[in-house]
């Protein structure tokens, strides 16, 4: 039986990890819920953000925060490019087969990207993010770090900002319109193509920020996007596509806590199994609501 102190410590760890899951869940979720694209290559835009941040700190001495923003912007460029150059042309010519075709292409992009990264940085197994010195605190019997706090604050700030953007700005209104009723958004004169690009930009940027923070904690590795992508799936689907960002974020937090608490009782190697097991069970048992699913996944007439 874990002691209260242990339990509290693991809770803190769960909150930190959960905040990261919240951010990727929201990032991936907004792309999927608005565009319907099965954007597997999120894995790649995530990782390349971390690599770019690391490289730019190493080669040009960018300070931490500037490197972080730069990295996230690099990921954004790749995400927008994927939509403009690959997904949209495929959607336009594939009709009913679009979902599968886009998934396969996205898979291909991911593989190419990931291994190109390995090739370019072949001499370094992993890369560090420069310019950040972590500090430890001991508060109320708990061990905290500056990085951990930053991760939580940044993640939740971005999640809340996205919620505000969606609810209170003109851009947010248009994005929600396209998600809720693609036909009506065409009718009122919205250009869904542009909205898709904007959404890919937002999602890729948020994912990139999460990646750089993750890499600051450990390191940037070519495969670093694998787990976050899957966690993003779990979070986005469990919360329900189209949910408010804060709600998605809370689900992410819950996943982080569940994972952390389960590592009190089992080896950490098994905890990821718990999360994937949840995904498997969820997909296998969820009630089928065909019209709703079809509606959410049908992309706007391009």
């Amino acid at each position, binding site marked *: 039986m874990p002691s209260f102190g242990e339990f509290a410590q693991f809770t803190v760890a769960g909150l930190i990890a959960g905040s990261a899951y919240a951010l990727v869940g929201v990032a991936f979720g907004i792309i999927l819920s608005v565009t319907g694209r099965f954007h597997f290559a999120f894995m790649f835009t995530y990782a390349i953000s971390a690599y770019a941040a690391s490289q730019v700190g190493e080669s040009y001495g960018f300070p931490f925060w500037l490197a972080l923003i730069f990295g996230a912007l690099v990921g954004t460029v790749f995400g927008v490019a994927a939509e403009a150059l690959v997904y949209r042309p495929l959607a336009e010519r594939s009709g009913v087969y679009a979902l*599968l075709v886009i*998934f396969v292409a996205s898979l*291909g992009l*991911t*593989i190419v990207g990931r291994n190109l990264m390995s*090739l370019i940085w072949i001499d370094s197994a992993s890369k560090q993010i420069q310019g950040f010195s972590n500090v430890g605190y001991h508060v109320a019997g708990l061990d905290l770090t500056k990085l951990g706090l930053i991760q939580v604050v940044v993640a939740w700030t971005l999640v809340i900002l996205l919620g505000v953007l969606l609810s209170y700005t003109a851009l947010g209104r248009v994005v929600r319109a396209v998600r809720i009723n693609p036909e009506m958004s065409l009718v009122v004169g919205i250009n869904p193509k542009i909205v898709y690009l904007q959404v890919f930009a937002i999602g890729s940027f948020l994912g990139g920020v999460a990646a750089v923070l993750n890499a600051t904690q450990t390191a940037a590795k070519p495969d670093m996007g694998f787990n976050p992508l899957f966690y993003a799936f779990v979070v986005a689907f469990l919360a329900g596509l189209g949910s408010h960002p804060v709600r998605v974020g809370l689900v992410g937090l819950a996943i982080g806590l569940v994972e952390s608490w389960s590592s009190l009782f089992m080896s950490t190697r098994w905890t990821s*199994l718990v999360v994937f097991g949840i995904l498997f069970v969820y*997909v296998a048992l969820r009630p*089928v609501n065909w019209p709703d699913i079809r509606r959410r996944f049908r992309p706007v007439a391009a």
Partner: protein
Amino acid sequence: MEIQITYLNSVLIFTIFALSLNLLLGYAGQVSVAHAAFGAIGGYTVGYLYLEHDVGLLPGLVVGVLLSALAGLIVGLPALRLSTEFLILLTLATQTIILTLVTTNSSLGGTYGLQGLTGLSVFGDELILPSDFLPYLFALAVIVYLIVRRFGESPYGRVLRGIREDEVVCRSLGKNVFVYKLTVFSVTAAIAGLAGVLLAAQTQLASPSLFSFDQSTAIIAMVILGGSGNLLGSVLGATLLVLLTPFFQNVLSFAPEKSSLWRLIAYGAVLVVVMLVRPQGLLPEGTNLGTLGRRLIRRRTSVADDAMALALPGQAIVNATTTQGDPDGDAHALTELAHHGGLPATEGGDWNKDEVVLSVVGLTKRFGGITAAEDLKMELRRGRITALVGPNGAGKTTVFNLLTGAIRPDAGQITLHGKDITGFRPDQVANEGMARSFQDVRVFPRLSVLENVMIALQGQVGEHTSGLFLRPKATAQSERATRDRAMEWLSFVGMDSFAEYQAGALAFGQQKLVALARVLATDAEVVLLDEPASGIDQQWVEVMLGLIELLRDQGRTICIVEHNLHVVGRLADHTYFMELGRITAQGSFEELTNESRLAEAYFGTA
């Protein structure tokens, strides 16, 4: 020489992987990113049993394949009702779970896997050098090719492809889609398990990296590149992609580490480029050197062919209707075709005296707060056309869905030929003798016109694994008979000259005729036609109406939902008027149109 043979062995093993994934993905349309994980089950089983328990290769192989089949079944069960996106998620979770299980299990060697699988032997023959493996691998590859081809290029495979195109329609034609899906998941997982065994044996280790997500992706790339739905294509795809390794290493002289990265980049690039440039792959479905003449599916795109594509099949219908009284030739064939036991209905006569074929009592269905159908009572009589009319939202489509088992009623009873079929699944309803057409037609686009009709015929020996593998002669015979019958139905609707066309390439009116032939080919006594006259121009409507009247005169029991009242007036022997889920009137069309209350309900009041 041994190095070259190693590559050849790899080609053979990945051919086995690719062939099985093609059957699942290319033929049955089930997307799986877990294929290498099923291989892991096979490979690790053999490795574990050999290293820990001294079990020989052959028994280990059998256990491994069986366990993989079981895993395929476990994944297949939830997969039955999943759409593509969720199937991707499910198989993604499967791949990760299986790999995590083997990586974290210390008795399975952790991240390094089970090493030192040396000294394996088969029938006393020790397998040391690659060339020792070669004959066995080759034999197995050929056997797998023959098995997969038997599944895929056969009546069974036709059903798989139908499931890929449109599961719901497949079910409505009498196919038990669940059994097909479960079988295909299980069988392909078992074959993947076999390939995993062979891979582990050949590489002399069973490690996570051999069966990783990257590996699953590589196999997908082989299938996609070679051609989805084309088995020779999978052989080609596997060969090309496996040989990329020696290509990068020897031809381009890359260092081994770089070359393996470039190989993976190539796999990814293949996926993207093929999707953008040639999604059907190098060898599209249906192109097969050996059967070029028989299975060729033509895509018509030239102007001259468009003219033919829009041509009305007028002459065939004219012949059919005018020679009806002729005792020889076409007429005989046609009456044979349409004969359903019992006598054709008498001209005119009292509707109430005709035999009741389908009877519905108290049928009710509610969706949340909305009553889609309320206490419906109706009858379909032999040799009569019954029409369902009513304003928007009256519940007419719901009636068809309830009758065919697509939705379960909350209350009520449906009786067909005196048998209670309430609650039957759609495929069971079709087997009992009631079939429907769809308002949006829904032909199987990538199947040929002929295949569209052939798939509908009941009682085909080759549609079941037992018949397919144990009774080859009966299967061949049944297939010939099926083809002949299907051609007869196509002649009936006048589309026989389009038999080899891909159904998706046809004009809408032509597709409607093919869909009619398809539903008739089920030999269902009761045919429900959903808006047979919609979406087509006058001439086509005439053709359709002529065919439907011909069917009625030949004794078929027909029910139509139609909004074009002109058509209803012409065709209907009896009409039910529906409003808000209830039948509020019935009788002849003239009787109904004389009632002002119905006019108000239909057209609204000022």
